[in-house]
């Protein structure tokens, strides 16, 4: 049983460009959350998707958007990249939105903005 998978593993972009990151949740999971983790920091919540809709959003600008597909996979899009967007982007999946459900994290996508 594959766990949470993310692609690509690493990505290098320049300022002003746009990027799309992808996540496939663990089999049987229907909820996907995205986090940004800067070096030396804990993960910061970006948003959560459930039933193909954004259900919760953290303190991130509209440049960060997402999508969830009928097969529960998800994409994170970031427009007009800034140097400060360089980070590890983590996807977490669970069954249901409740946070007493165990969150399974993927290995992350390392984004570098030059």
């Amino acid at each position, binding site marked *: 049983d594959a766990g949470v998978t993310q692609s690509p593993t690493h990505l290098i972009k320049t300022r002003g460009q746009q990027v799309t990151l992808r996540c496939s949740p663990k089999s049987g999971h229907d909820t996907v959350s995205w986090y940004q983790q800067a070096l030396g920091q*804990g993960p910061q919540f970006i948003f959560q998707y459930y039933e193909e809709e954004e259900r*919760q959003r953290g303190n991130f600008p509209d440049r960060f958007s997402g999508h969830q597909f009928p097969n529960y996979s998800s994409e994170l899009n970031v427009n007009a990249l800034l140097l400060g967007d360089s980070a590890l982007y983590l996807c977490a999946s669970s069954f249901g939105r409740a*946070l007493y459900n165990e969150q399974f*994290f993927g290995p992350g996508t390392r984004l570098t903005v030059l």
Partner: protein
Amino acid sequence: SQKIEQNSEALNIQEGKTATLTCNYTNYSPAYLQWYRQDPGRGPVFLLLIRENEKEKRKERLKVTFDTTLKQSLFHITASQPADSATYLCALAGYGGSQGNLIFGKGTKLSVKP
């Protein structure tokens, strides 16, 4: 604003000893508190969840306490082993509107020396 502090950035202990990590929070009343382990370049791995009405929870060599009066959680690893070396993150989750929002601390890097 909500704030989570983990006692130190790094903790060095000798193999066989008990490691104790601290998570303090302010301006928040979490319904759940979770502990995760994160290895370099990997996503966090869920370890334990404790609810606000639970004082203590155990899993094998791990023990978590949750004191809502002190606004503090303690995470213990007994009979520590070099394989326990990793960064440990605490995360808080609230009720209702913040269902999808896990708030993470910066983590404590634990090194267990043989």
